[in-house]
């Protein structure tokens, strides 16, 4: 008798119903209340977080759905990114999206539900479905400015590439199934190990599977060389959606990567498994991501494109912790993504506010902002310095843990490279600060921010300062997630 243990998916069910309610409510009130539905959405996300706190821990649906510490940790990140994305989109909703306001929030919530299912997936099929549910609403959201050519282009591009990468991923997953005879990830780990021992090396089929799954998830993560879509989509999509793409959707990719590679393909990370050693393959991709992301970001004049390339580089840093395949490695990746939530959502929130008030995304137009809006400029400076990894902001602690994991696992070359590229990254982050603070011309742009956006900014800054000075609670929580993999 299978144990469904429905109690564990109450948060997901609630969030799904809440999304339907938001859409219905918006229709029912004749789309008159953009603010109210925004706050309702934020409230629903907060309520989901409470439900998550009440109902977690255990497995259901015969191990298909795991509510373990890893899932819980990442669900907090997903809910946080959805909360902050919704919070920073009030002005967009009020000014630019006259119709389909409810659907905008509803789709954000649907995508979040997908991420939550993905994080809990204990086997390949539910993992894949979770990933699709995450991505498909985002296709629509990326193209939400339907009169804007760039936005539509972004949506279309994202859909074509997303569908393509999903197909590749599915092919890779089917190969894994073919080799192991199971879709259950833990069983797969055991069966692959047995197969490896029995056949004295599995051979090329597993390498193909590894490469395809890596490519499939690499697209979601915008990991080099699967990153080409990211700058255009990030630029074209509404900025809060860009933020959600760069944090929530990326964290979903990270957790999928952990489930498949660190759990399912655990034994194959090491260099002795050549040519199946995915650890080294990923290390090379991480190196490429850090170099390419950071160097391309140097030349960007549009803040969203700059942040797009910066997020390509950031995923490279995350992968440094990932390839360590250790307790500290997994913990540091979790911590990194958690901090990335505050810094990146915050930076995009400022970009959103700026665009709402001035209509511009160009970095040059930030000139002299610190005179007219000292608070927002200071916040932006904190977000960017945290992304660059300057202590005592949390971004530094995150980088420190990731690099510590890398050194511990013997990837010293990768860590040195990562640090060198981090110096490069400071240049383009500091460039925005330079514009805001040092630039002589002062257009006296006065930024008006809605209350919800202020909440988002304050959460971001507080998170970066508090967890920068006192990272221990989050780090312990993140290290706790590593127990899932039995290190």
């Amino acid at each position, binding site marked *: 008798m299978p144990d469904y243990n429905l109690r564990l998916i109450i948060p997901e069910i609630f969030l799904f119903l809440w999304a339907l309610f938001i859409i219905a409510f918006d229709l029912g009130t004749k789309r008159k209340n953009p603010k109210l539905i925004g706050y309702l959405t934020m409230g629903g996300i907060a309520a989901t977080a409470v439900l998550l706190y009440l109902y977690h821990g255990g497995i259901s649906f015969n191990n298909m759905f795991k509510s373990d510490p890893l899932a819980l940790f990442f669900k907090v990140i997903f809910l946080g990114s959805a909360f902050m994305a919704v919070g920073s989109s009030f002005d967009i909703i009020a000014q630019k999206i006259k119709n389909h306001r409810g659907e905008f929030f509803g789709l954000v919530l649907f995508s979040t539900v997908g991420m939550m299912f993905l994080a809990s997936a204990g086997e390949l099929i539910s993992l894949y479905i979770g990933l699709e549910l995450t991505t498909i609403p985002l296709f629509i959201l990326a193209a939400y400015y339907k009169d804007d050519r760039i936005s539509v282009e972004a949506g279309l591009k994202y859909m074509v590439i997303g569908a393509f990468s999903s197909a590749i991923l599915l092919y890779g997953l089917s190969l894994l199934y073919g080799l192991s005879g199971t879709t259950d990830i833990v069983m797969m780990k055991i069966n692959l190990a047995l197969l490896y021992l029995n056949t004295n090396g599995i051979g090329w089929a597993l390498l193909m599977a590894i490469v395809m799954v890596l490519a499939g998830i690499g697209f979601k993560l915008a990991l080099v060389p699967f990153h080409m879509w990211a700058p255009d989509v990030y630029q074209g999509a509404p900025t809060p959606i860009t933020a959600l793409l760069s944090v929530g959707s990326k964290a979903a990719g990270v957790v999928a990567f952990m489930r498949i590679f660190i759990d399912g393909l655990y034994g194959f990370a090491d260099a002795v498994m050549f040519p199946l050693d995915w650890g080294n393959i990923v290390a090379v991709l991480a190196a490429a991501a850090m170099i390419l992301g950071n160097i391309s970001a140097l030349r960007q004049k549009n803040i969203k494109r700059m942040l797009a390339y910066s997020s390509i580089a950031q995923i490279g840093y995350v992968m440094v912790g990932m390839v360590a395949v250790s307790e500290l490695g997994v913990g540091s990746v979790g911590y990194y993504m958690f901090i990335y939530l505050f810094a990146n959502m915050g930076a995009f929130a400022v970009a959103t506010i700026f665009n709402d008030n001035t209509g511009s995304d160009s970095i040059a137009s930030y000139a002299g902002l610190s005179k007219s809006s000292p608070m927002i400029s200071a916040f932006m400076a904190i977000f960017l310095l945290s992304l660059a990894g*300057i202590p*005592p902001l949390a971004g530094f602690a995150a980088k420190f843990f990731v*690099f510590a994991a890398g050194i511990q696992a013997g990837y010293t070359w990768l860590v040195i490279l990562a*640090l060198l590229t981090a*110096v490069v990254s400071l240049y383009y982050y500091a460039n925005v600060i330079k514009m805001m*603070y040092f630039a002589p011309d002062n257009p006296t742009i006065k930024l008006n921010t809605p209350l919800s956006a202020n909440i988002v900014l304050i959460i971001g800054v507080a998170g970066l300062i508090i967890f920068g000075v006192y990272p221990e609670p989050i780090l312990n929580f993140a290290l706790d997630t590593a127990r899932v993999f039995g290190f």
Partner: protein
Amino acid sequence: MDFPILTYMIFIPLFGFIAVMFLPKEKHTLIRWASAFFSFIPMILSFYLTYIYYFNYSGSADMVFVEGPFSWIAPIKAHYYLGADGISVPMLFLTGLLSFLSILASFNITNRVKEYFSFFLLLESGMIGVFCALDFFLFYVFWEVMLVPMYFLIGVWGGPRKEYAAIKFFLYTLFGSIFMLVAILILYFTSDPHTLNMLELIQTTPGVMGHSLQLLCFAFLFVAFAIKVPVWPFHTWLPDAHVEAPTAVSVILAGVLLKMGTYGMLRISWPMFPEATRFFAVPIAILGLIAIIYGALVSMAQKDLKKLVAYSSVSHMGYCMLALGAYSSVTAISGCMFQMFSHGLITGALFLLVGVLYDRAHTREIAAFGGLGSKLPVFTGLMVLFSMAALGLPGMSGFVSEFMVFIGAFTAPAPDLMIITALAVLGVVLTAAYMLRMVQRVFLGEFNSEKWSGLTEINVREVLTVAPLALLTILIGVYPSPLTNIMKATLENLVNLMAR
């Protein structure tokens, strides 16, 4: 220790940083005096600390005023761990004094006053932290924390090329720091059990780390510290940063920040890697020699007064490097510490005085002046005093430190630095040459009464900012033993550690 004096010294300016940020932006006078207050307390505490240390602890090499280790980030064993010994006490004294004087000297800042003073207090907090942190993670955090306020201070309130100078300083220093970070991580994972406690690492590292890894870690740390000193050839950020920075920031840069490099070497690299120190001693002494001669020659060619002082720092810090090469001589290492302290006083004062002149004349070009001695006698007197101190006139601190460095390096049991030291003595002549030439061209000769008739004499506030420095320069020049006694026991212990 009941009273956590070091914590107060770090956190009072930090509290001041936050408090000043919340003051109303138009109340300039209030902001100025509040900042002066928040830097006055740590200065008094640093005097008290020095007083207590001198009378109670200067005979021992132990860490005193120890706080902690309190667990901070348990999973990576980072601790909040502070302490001071004979190396840090003089540096804390210098930091407390120069920070307060610099804030007084900044009272004429009128642009974005609130931000200026709050950044300055944040900077002070970071500097004090560096000089008393005994945990590597904590040390690194303080080391980096200073970069951001410094970046803003140069970038917002600097001279014409401020943006370039600010980012160059930021990137250059960060570039050095990352090597330190790698070295810290290697040390952490090599030690068993893993630790970030510097004192423990000093004891255990020579025993557990292989020769080549020691050399690598030493080299990594050296890059980080050498960029801060700056040792030739890593000095190129210095002239830009010093020249573009506002006066008070130049004082802090030259007086405190440069010392953090040599402090890091004395506190960390040298005792932690004695094998590597022996291995690299002669090259380091040669780098010191190059810095002395090169810095002096470049100073001689400068047309800008501030640039001259900036390059003279490169030359003067070269003496420290030469002394550090003579790792086996207590005299040489004491000379290094003495030079760090005395250079902080002298160069700090020179930057302040150049700032005073610039505020009035709006130029720093040496050729533009002449005969200022007749018009500004007090200013000239002070400037000549510090120029003499910089060129090492007996009776002032610069002479004592250079003499100790030369004696120590010449007679050091190992390595043999006789020839290098002999060549370095040339630096004294070159220093005298550029300093005297500057004095002659700015203060002597014919006064251009048409052009400079509006120049006013140095005012009371400005005299007050340099007077303590003048007093100390002469005091420890005539009677150096209090300073040498403070650091004697610690440095003897250090030399013993390096003989392992």
